[in-house]
């Protein structure tokens, strides 16, 4: 590894097998203020990665960097890593103040360290310092855990799906609080989740993980709008992934033959005629209408028949047969105005720029 400068936080070729879980050549690098989100299904090895970064497992191969130094051989207590578990794992036998003091006591506090009382005040906990964790609300627990972690002056935050067990409304509030906190703290954070919204909301940079390996690393926009593989596309919420063949490319627009239909998609550099591609269409990019657009800027307009409709949060998820299976999201208003029902004939339109191509 000579000549390679250590990243502020990161991993190089991290490999490990523990039971049925494994890490395969995990490599990433983060800056000193980045929030890095790792998105992946359960069983992908996300928690194993976090626990390896925290020092609970020694990797079979590879290196871990924390605070600009190689921390591969350091025990957990020497890494200055704040581990935030689901439900935050506050010490139930200690009061709020004692929990926060625990973070200070063992870390060899510096002379200029913020006093525990000031930390409690900063996170709005000064009035509940004498309470035990069992008496706290979810939001208070999160703030106590953050205060406890700050007390030991962490070099890195690790979040292991902290919000996964909460109901949706509450989750939004806590996520917003967390985002503000991370923005102000200026401490790098790695955040593991299987929730795409959480990833979009928090990530400066993100990775999609599957079977112990990072299958794509990039900005949230890159990953959500340009998934590198079918696996990533399926996981980040692209409901329609069509197999097709490039018919031709002109003026930056590729014509794709998919079954009986021809799609127009913004070409990527590698699309060549006769090449097999996957066309990815996000459901929110599909517009439904009763009549065809006169506007020719919409390249893709297909006669489609509604197969099924299901409520999905505030939206309706409409499954269509457009000569190929297609999924669209429509608002309640559109749903009523279009009089959608199973069997309704509609026009589905998709902008060429909204179709993302993945070369096989």
């Amino acid at each position, binding site marked *: 590894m000579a000549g390679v400068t250590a990243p502020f936080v990161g991993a190089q070729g991290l490999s490990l097998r523990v039971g049925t879980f494994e890490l395969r050549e995990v490599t990433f690098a983060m800056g000193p203020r980045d929030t890095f989100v790792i998105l992946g299904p359960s069983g992908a090895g996300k928690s194993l990665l976090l626990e390896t970064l*925290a020092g*609970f497992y020694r990797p079979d191969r590879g290196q871990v960097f924390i605070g600009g130094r190689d921390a591969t051989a350091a025990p957990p*207590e020497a890494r200055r890593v704040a581990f935030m*578990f689901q439900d935050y*794992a506050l*010490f*139930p036998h200690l009061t709020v103040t004692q929990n926060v003091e625990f973070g200070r*006591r*063992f870390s060899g506090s510096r002379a200029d360290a913020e006093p525990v009382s000031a930390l409690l005040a900063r996170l709005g906990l000064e009035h509940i310092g004498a309470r035990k964790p069992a*008496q706290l609300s979810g939001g208070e627990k999160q703030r106590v855990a953050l205060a406890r972690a700050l007390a030991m002056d962490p070099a890195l935050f690790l979040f292991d799906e902290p919000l996964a067990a909460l109901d949706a409304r509450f989750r939004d509030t806590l996520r917003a609080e967390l985002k503000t906190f991370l923005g102000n703290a200026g401490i790098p954070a790695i955040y593991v989740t299987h929730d795409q919204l959480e990833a979009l909301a928090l990530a400066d940079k993100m990775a999609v993980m599957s079977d112990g390996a990072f299958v794509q690393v990039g900005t949230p926009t890159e990953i959500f709008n340009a998934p590198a593989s079918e696996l990533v596309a399926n996981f980040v919420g692209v409901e329609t992934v069509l197999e097709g063949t490039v018919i031709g490319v002109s003026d930056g627009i590729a014509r794709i033959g998919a079954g009986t239909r021809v799609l127009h998609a913004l070409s990527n550099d590698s699309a060549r005629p006769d090449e097999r591609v996957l066309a990815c269409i996000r459901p929110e990019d599909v517009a439904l209408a009763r009549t065809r657009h006169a506007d020719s800027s919409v390249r893709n307009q297909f006669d489609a028949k509604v197969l099924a409709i299901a409520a999905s949060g505030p939206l309706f998820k409409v499954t269509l047969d457009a000569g190929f299976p297609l999924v669209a999201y429509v608002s309640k208003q559109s749903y009523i105005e279009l009089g959608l029902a199973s069997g309704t004939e509609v026009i589905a339109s998709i902008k060429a720029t909204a179709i993302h191509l993945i070369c096989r």
Partner: protein
Amino acid sequence: MASAVSSRVQGDRMNTHRFSQARGLVFAFSLASGLLLAFIMLPLLEIYGSQTSASLMRAASSAEVRNAILLSLEAACLTTACAGLLGVPLAYLLARFSFPGKGFVEAIVDLPLAVPHTVVGIGLLFVFGRTGLLGAPAASITGIKFWGTTAGVVIAMLYVSVPYAVNAARVGLESVDPRLEKVARTLGAGRWAVLFKVTLPLAGRGILTGLSLTFARSISEFGAVIVLTYYPMTAPVKIYDLFLQFGLSESSAMATLFLTVTLSLFIFFRYLVALRKGGAPIGWRA
């Protein structure tokens, strides 16, 4: 909090509902339970009922009786300490790790519960007796003898009571969420600090339960003690001795004194365990 309270109220209501529906079953089972509780309590109450203050005073004024009771207390305390020092580490290993042969180790821990106590005493004689495997070298090298000494009493008590210490401590340690230990490590605490500041305090109730059971089992041990070391006489041995020499009335007076001591301690330990309930980790995540 409010929802927890209301759900508990709802739960109670549901239980009451079920209670009224199951009246026949509850009646039959209450009858059986009543018989069982009476079976446990009657002999003890009868011992108290048979005593006069004069017989109690006479027993209490005997130095031999007092010494036997004190020896029982002393030996049971020593046994409990040994069981804690040796049993908690084993309980920790069993609670936290899986390893080849774990089932075998668990079986060994429970073995003393299955062996008749006189048989335990004979086995201990072979090991700790005058010519025993460890008894002979221990006497010649360190001077510690296991016959005719408190050490012998402790050895016999320990053998029959240590399963209670290990098993209860293990349940207590298993109830401690390993994530709490991990968080403590990341907060800068080393393995030993985590053990003493997080794991043991949170497992305290289980460990305390185990130690109180160990104490109770030790102080009441008779069979293993009498085979390994008849002297010095512990209270149960002395009571048996009085029974053989002077009959029921003499022995029951001492039995009453000893029973009072052990029951007081039993109640005190249960109180201690109940006190820890507030700090106990069981169900804390809800």
